[in-house]
């Protein structure tokens, strides 16, 4: 109603002051035609309802007979009008607060949903779980009834349905049958081609054979957000609504965020799968390598056994007496054969350790016996190089429990190395027991080992200097095998050395060793 002077309300609104008409019939300006259901008024009072000077309404009072109001009555009416303004203002504020609360709770809900989605992306590598969380939240927050996430298959160049929400089996089956390609159907195909969100506010205006299943299921509006990887299309997120109409920008923004999260999840899952596959391949290759080494060294050893066996029988004169010259050559043959056998055994040991096939056979042993066994085995070597060779074993050592044969192997390796690398001076073995652990030290007056080489020598195929291999022989496997054997006993092996000042190799093992993890 446009305010006009012809009515009381209009005149009050225009003047924004109290209007008092003592007799409407005597007022030449009053032209208001009252509706039939309204009682006739002769005397009228109009009071503007003003909020901070702005007109928000008019209160009108009327009397069927001429009866002017006195100033007290007018003042009372003005007070009522003020009350009315306050009441209206309260309602308006209340509505405003409610609207803001609704908006806020929507935002809170969106944030919570995003939180859920982010958590799903970060906490599980199970792609199905993540995508079903995303599609459910997307539908709930976009005011739609159904949604789907598709992934794009690079090889077939088709979108495959991956996760759905609010869709019946018939619709899912129908969509699965469709071949959706980039640039293909007016929905996903177009959005993917443009690499931008796309909406169809009313499917009835977009007659397409590809979308008719969706229409038949009762949907009218679609919003499609492509899932964009750095260089390629990863898939698409689609929500469907039964009510036609445009989707607000806020919804599109929200779904784009969800789309980003989906891309992340899909890529994480893909990377994880690739890493898993690579890991499997590597493990397989490593197993084959270890198996090959084990087989090969076994095969090499069989003929070598025969060579060494016959040589020994010949030297034992089982086939008759040997001329002295031939005997000397046979002894060289035997020494070299034993060396070769040692190398082959090292390779076999290491491949077994790597394949997890080497196990300790735990039994009681005497450390003193281990030390003395090693001493008698290597004494001739030390004597040949004119080295002082001593063994100091603490008296009354407790009986040990572990693999005595393997510990002998370790000690033999350490002492053998010490003799090999020491040209003058001495090699000493010291064995003691403290706090439930044996400590064995092998000291030499050899060339010593630099700090950087100390870190490497326990690794496979590492000698401090590769020229050493040529000069001194050895596979460079002995120390790494020793390390594994000591670790399998739950012990530790290390070296203390300084170039020019000799080296001391130590190992400690529990007096009573138990099988360590990693042993079968």
């Amino acid at each position, binding site marked *: 109603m446009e305010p006009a002077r012809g009515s009381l309300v209009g005149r009050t609104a225009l003047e924004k002051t109290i209007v008092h008409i003592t007799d409407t019939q005597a007022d030449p300006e009053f032209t208001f035609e009252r509706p039939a259901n309204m009682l006739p008024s002769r005397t009228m009072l109009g009071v503007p309802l003003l909020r901070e000077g702005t007109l928000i309404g008019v209160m009108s009072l009327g009397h069927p007979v001429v009866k002017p109001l006195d100033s007290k009555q007018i003042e009372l009416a003005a007070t009522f009008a003020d009350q009315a303004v306050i009441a209206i203002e309260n309602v308006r504020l209340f509505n405003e607060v409610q609207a803001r609360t609704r908006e806020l709770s929507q935002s809170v809900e969106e944030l919570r949903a995003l939180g859920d989605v982010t958590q799903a992306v970060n906490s599980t590598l199970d792609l199905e779980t993540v995508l079903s969380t995303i599609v459910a939240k997307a539908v709930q927050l976009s005011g739609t009834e159904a949604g789907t996430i598709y992934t794009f298959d690079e090889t077939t160049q088709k979108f495959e349905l991956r996760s759905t929400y609010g869709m019946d089996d018939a619709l899912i089956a129908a969509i699965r049958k469709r071949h959706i390609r980039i640039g293909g159907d007016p929905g996903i195909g177009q959005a993917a081609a443009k690499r931008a969100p796309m909406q169809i506010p009313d499917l009835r205006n977009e007659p397409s054979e590809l979308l008719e299943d969706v229409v038949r299921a009762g949907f009218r509006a679609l919003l499609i957000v492509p899932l964009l990887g750095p260089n390629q299309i990863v898939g698409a997120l689609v929500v469907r609504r039964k009510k036609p109409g445009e989707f607000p920008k806020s919804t599109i923004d929200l779904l784009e965020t969800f789309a980003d999260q989906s891309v992340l999840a899909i890529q994480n899952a893909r990377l994880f799968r690739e890493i898993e596959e690579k890991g499997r391949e590597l493990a397989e290759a490593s197993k084959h390598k270890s198996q090959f080494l084990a087989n090969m060294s076994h095969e090499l050893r069989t003929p070598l056994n*025969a060579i060494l066996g016959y040589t*020994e029988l010949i030297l*034992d004169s089982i086939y008759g007496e040997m001329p002295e010259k031939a005997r000397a050559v046979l002894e060289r043959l035997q020494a070299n054969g034993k060396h070769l056998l040692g190398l082959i055994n090292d390779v076999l040991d290491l491949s077994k350790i790597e394949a997890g096939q080497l196990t300790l*056979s735990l039994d009681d042993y005497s450390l003193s016996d281990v030390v003395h066994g090693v001493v008698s085995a290597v004494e001739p070597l030390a004597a040949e190089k004119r080295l002082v060779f001593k063994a100091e074993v603490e008296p009354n050592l407790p009986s040990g429990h572990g693999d005595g044969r393997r510990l002998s192997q370790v000690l033999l390796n350490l002492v053998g190395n010490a003799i090999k690398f020491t040209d003058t001076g001495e090699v000493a073995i010291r064995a003691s027991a403290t706090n439930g652990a044996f400590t064995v030290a092998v000291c030499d007056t050899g060339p010593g080992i630099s700090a950087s080489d100390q870190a490497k020598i326990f690794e496979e195929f590492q000698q401090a200097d590769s020229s050493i291999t040529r000069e001194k022989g050895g596979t460079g496997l002995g120390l790494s095998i020793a390390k594994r054997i000591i670790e399998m006993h739950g012990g530790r092996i290390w070296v203390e050395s300084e170039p020019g000042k000799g080296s001391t190799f130590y190992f400690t093992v529990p007096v009573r060793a138990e099988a360590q993890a990693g042993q079968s």
Partner: protein
Amino acid sequence: MSKRILVVEDQEDNRRILRDLLTSANFEVIEAADGETGLAAAAAHRPDPILMDIQLPGLDGYEATRRDAVLRAIPIIAVTSYGLAGDADKAHAAGCDDYISKPYSPDSCWRKFREYLCPADEVIGMRR
């Protein structure tokens, strides 16, 4: 009196080394290249002891040992592959009395045999 030893071993050289070693010490050596033949030879000749390779074609050493009550009464020394996990335990579980692990030198074999061939002092005297 010469003792009779059965060698069950599929590898010809290994068999011959043991044969040459043992015959040089005046033992009678019976040879078998597989478990089945070994069983038959043991039943026919009642050797003492038996040297048995563990990896044999067809019927393996364990099977051969487990199967026969007569065999179980004869000391059996298993010849096991070097360091294979649990081989020694398997040999014992199969009823073998002792084992020698490959690679063995004839000398180390000799030391082991002596435990089973004693107290025939003359036998020890024959070697070297």
